[in-house]
């Protein structure tokens, strides 16, 4: 279809238009922190900061959601006791004769999925959804998750081209691109004075009925194309995917895992900010007769993730959890779905409390060089230490 143009000052109006039919979610800055939040008129959308702290996955795959409420009903006693107090020393025996009550269970499934439009996510974020789709049922549908799919269905993704990728971005290294279309319903690209808008799907199309949307001029279209090229060239390709599965398999026992994981504190940050990670856990809570079943995000650094009832934990050692995260993204998942479980947003690098660098890990473990295993840390991913002079504090 034709490329449209939306002038910058019309953006709030556009979002207002969209908000008439659906909840709008967009990156919004509060206290200096940019997070995806429900948008409301008057809230500024933050597009200068490239990535919101977390991917928008939480709006489709909720961190914590109750999806079942259940209750037990005990059968009422068949006989009602007389005024027991008068029955003398034997007491009332109110229910001794009553049939033994049995429980009946009432269940109520919850699954609200109202229409929402996520604006301002990046192509890598959108790609994350595609990879989660595989797991939650799109793929062959051998497992279909009603909660996820209902929300996914009701969600439109309006992505914005990355004008200015960060040094931690590596989408191109894994087949993505700052202007990628995968999963994107419509793509906005910042050009002088506003945005060019391209819809790739009907869902995307549906959001573009906004009156102020004009057809983009060739100049604008050209500029947009240029922006995309520029952006793409800005993204480093820090490692190669070639043979990465085999290499990971080959390096499974590699000593380098031990070296690389040392500064990992086994928290779940990387997985929770990741647009791709989809692991979850299910729990019940019951008080008296009323209970509910919920599911929450889980992650492979959580000890309970693999702990067995016996108390034995096959992944007790920190390094094995660490190894699993990367092996899963670039080996196990690919084996199953024939695609990678990473879209190169680099959030895990930026938000890791110790800045563990997935690119460094893949450089080391994804390359055949380390089959022998004895890699030394010095070789990889460390910026050269500065000269004495540069270290001003100390002179």
């Amino acid at each position: 279809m034709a490329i449209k143009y939306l002038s910058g000052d019309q953006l709030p109006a556009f979002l207002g238009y969209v908000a008439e039919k659906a909840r709008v979610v967009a990156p919004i800055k509060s206290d200096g922190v940019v997070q995806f939040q429900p948008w409301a008129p008057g809230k500024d959308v933050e597009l200068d900061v490239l990535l919101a702290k977390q991917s928008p996955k939480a709006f489709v795959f909720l961190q914590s959601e109750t999806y079942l409420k259940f209750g037990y009903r005990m059968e009422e006693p068949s006989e009602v006791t007389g005024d027991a107090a008068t029955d003398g020393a034997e007491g009332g025996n109110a229910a001794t004769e009553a049939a033994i009550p049995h429980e009946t269970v009432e269940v109520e499934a919850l699954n609200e999925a109202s229409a929402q439009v996520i604006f301002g996510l990046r192509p890598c974020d959108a790609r994350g959804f595609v990879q989660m789709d595989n797991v939650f049922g799109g793929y062959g549908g051998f497992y279909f998750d009603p909660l996820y799919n209902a929300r996914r269905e009701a969600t439109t993704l309006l992505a914005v081209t990355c004008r200015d990728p960060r040094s931690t971005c590596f989408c191109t290294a894994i087949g993505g691109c700052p202007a990628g279309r995968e999963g994107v319903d419509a793509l906005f690209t910042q050009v002088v004075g506003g945005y060019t808008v391209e819809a790739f799907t009907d869902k995307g199309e549906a959001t573009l009925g906004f009156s102020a949307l004009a057809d983009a001029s060739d100049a604008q279209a050209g500029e947009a194309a240029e922006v995309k090229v520029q952006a793409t060239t800005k993204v480093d390709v820090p490692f190669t995917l070639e043979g990465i599965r085999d290499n990971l398999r080959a390096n499974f026992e590699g000593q380098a895992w031990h070296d690389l994981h040392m500064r990992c504190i086994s928290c779940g940050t990387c997985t929770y900010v990741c647009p791709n990670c989809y692991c979850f856990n299910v729990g019940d809570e019951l008080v008296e007769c009323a209970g509910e079943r919920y599911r929450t995000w889980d992650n492979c650094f959580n000890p309970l993730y693999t702990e067995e009832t016996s108390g034995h934990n096959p992944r007790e050692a920190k390094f094995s959890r660490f190894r699993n995260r990367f092996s899963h993204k670039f080996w196990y998942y690919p084996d199953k779905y024939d695609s990678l479980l990473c879209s190169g947003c680099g959030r895990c690098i930026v938000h890791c409390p110790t800045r563990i660098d997935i690119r460094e890990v893949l450089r080391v473990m994804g390359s055949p060089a380390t089959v022998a295993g004895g890699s030394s840390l010095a070789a990889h991913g460390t910026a050269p230490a500065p000269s004495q002079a540069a270290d001003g504090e100390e002179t």
Partner: protein
Amino acid sequence: MRIGVFVCHCGTNIAATVDVVSVAKRALGLKDVVHAEDIMYTCAEPGQAAIRKAIEDKKLDRVVVAACSPHMHEMTFRRCVDNGGLNPYLFEMANIREHCSWIHTDIPVATEKAWDLVKMAVAKARRLEPLWSNEVEVNKDVLVIGGGVAGIQAALDLADAGLKVTIVERETTIGGVMAKLDKTFPTIDCSACILTPRMVDCAQHENIDVMAYCEVDRVSGYVGNFTVDVRKKAAMVDWTKCVGCEICVQKCPAKAPDTFNVGLEPTKAIYIPFPQAVPKRAAIQVEHCRWFTQGKCRVCEKVCPADAVDYEQKEETVQKRFGAIVVATGLEVFPWEEYYHEYGSGKIKDVISGLQYERMLSASGPYGGHVHRLSNGEGPKTVVFIQCVGSRDDSVGRPYCSSVCCMYTAKQALLTKDHCGMDTEVYVFYIDIRATGKGYEEFVKRVQTEFGVKYVRGRVSKLYEEEGKVMVRGFDTLLGEQVEIAADLVVLASGIMAANGAKELAQKLSVSYDEFGFFKEGHPKLRPVETNTAGVFLAGACQAPKDIPATVAQASATASKVIGLLANDKLKTSPMIAIVGQKDCVSCWKCIDVCPFGAPERQEVRPGELKSHVIETVCQGCGVCVATCPVNCISLKGFSTDAVLDQIEEALLS
């Protein structure tokens, strides 16, 4: 899970304020509750029968009884459930009497609260698990703390029953207060004459070890297995050599206050309290001994034929193990001087306490039984007794009745006539006469009629000296007029308090005590000689003021309780103790740090891997470790964290 709920009417005690029928009915709506009924008297046999029947018919695996306080009947129902074929610890109680029907009046409100309490109990019941108690060997030796008549009586009874007994007495001789008395009421027989033979019996009994001049420092362990540190104070005399010949006492040049004679006359720095002392051994009061204070003298050392004096002697602590402990620490006389300034605060020489008077009367006392005025040595013509000094008097913080003063005053009044002649004027100021014992009332009557002792009902407001007399100003509430008597001697019936250090001892034994320091019995009616700490028993005035017959009776009662306890070779320990889930233990050893009993230990679960482990027989089940364990891997059987949280949740649910 199949829970049965039984809601008790307790006659009208509960049913009058709580709609027990509706509570029972609603209980059937609770999860896992398959049986609920209301019962008139659940603790009575028909009630217990109903529980056993329900366990049988409905195949209950948990039982909840909503009735009185568990302190009242938990044991009763545990036994009942046990007889019903269920593990006794699969039972939980809801207290809807003491904590509900008795403190509320509004029926709907009380019923609603009772309902909550039942729900909470059911919630806890779901978390209960069967427990089995463990058996421990019982040490059959008994420790008796205090060598007064109570301790002596208990010791002899126990020893006669074949148990090894150790008496720990902090003075240098046993005998206690009774040894200081002249005569006993109402029979006027010589106190020493009936006591000293018993003292000798103790000394000679093969099963009794008298440890005089010793104190209990530390008590650890539990019923059947107490470990006690006994500190032997330094007498500066080697008692294995001393023969009690008293030569040293005669020769000693240094004077020292005489506690045995209640400070009437000084004794020597090296002393033996009284001729019939048991053991009859000398000891030095170092703070008054010239050698220790001035660095010269050593006379006693020179004169001692047995060369027993040892100035270098140090106190030592010995550790002993016992199966049971009898506390018989007795009493202290109320220090009236500190409180009764209107009575001269002790500055008036001729105003003395009842116990001092006993020593004055005593033939073996400092005056050989010669009753006289301390001011001038003359025999008194007029003697006034004042009762309730330090008893029944809130103004000095002693609201209770010391229970013996009325009688010993009557006795002393009689003895005064006897010693000083019938013409002596004897007055007794009293509030009420309490003569409840056998033959007591008759005795008092005799004192009043035959001996003409004048009883004046009223309090004495002031004592003061005038022209060599002690002026007694009081108010006769019967005549309704002021009375003033010029007395030669005034005797105050000073009251009874718990022995010094009673509180500290109670804390060492972790038994409770009241605000006055008297030890608290297990139950005022049903467990009068037990304490709340298993294996610790009470005898005599340490529990409350009593006279000699009552004391002796209680001592024998205690002895029989101890004999009953130690008749078992093994004791069942409570299974409600802490247990470590070693799977989750992170070996931080905080539990070991905080346990008051030293129950947790480091256990090697596999080579090189240490985990915490609680020694069952040592654990008392307080749960301090549970609250301290950062990973919550220690669980307190019967009070699991889940049980507590579920109760809270249930209470807040409604």
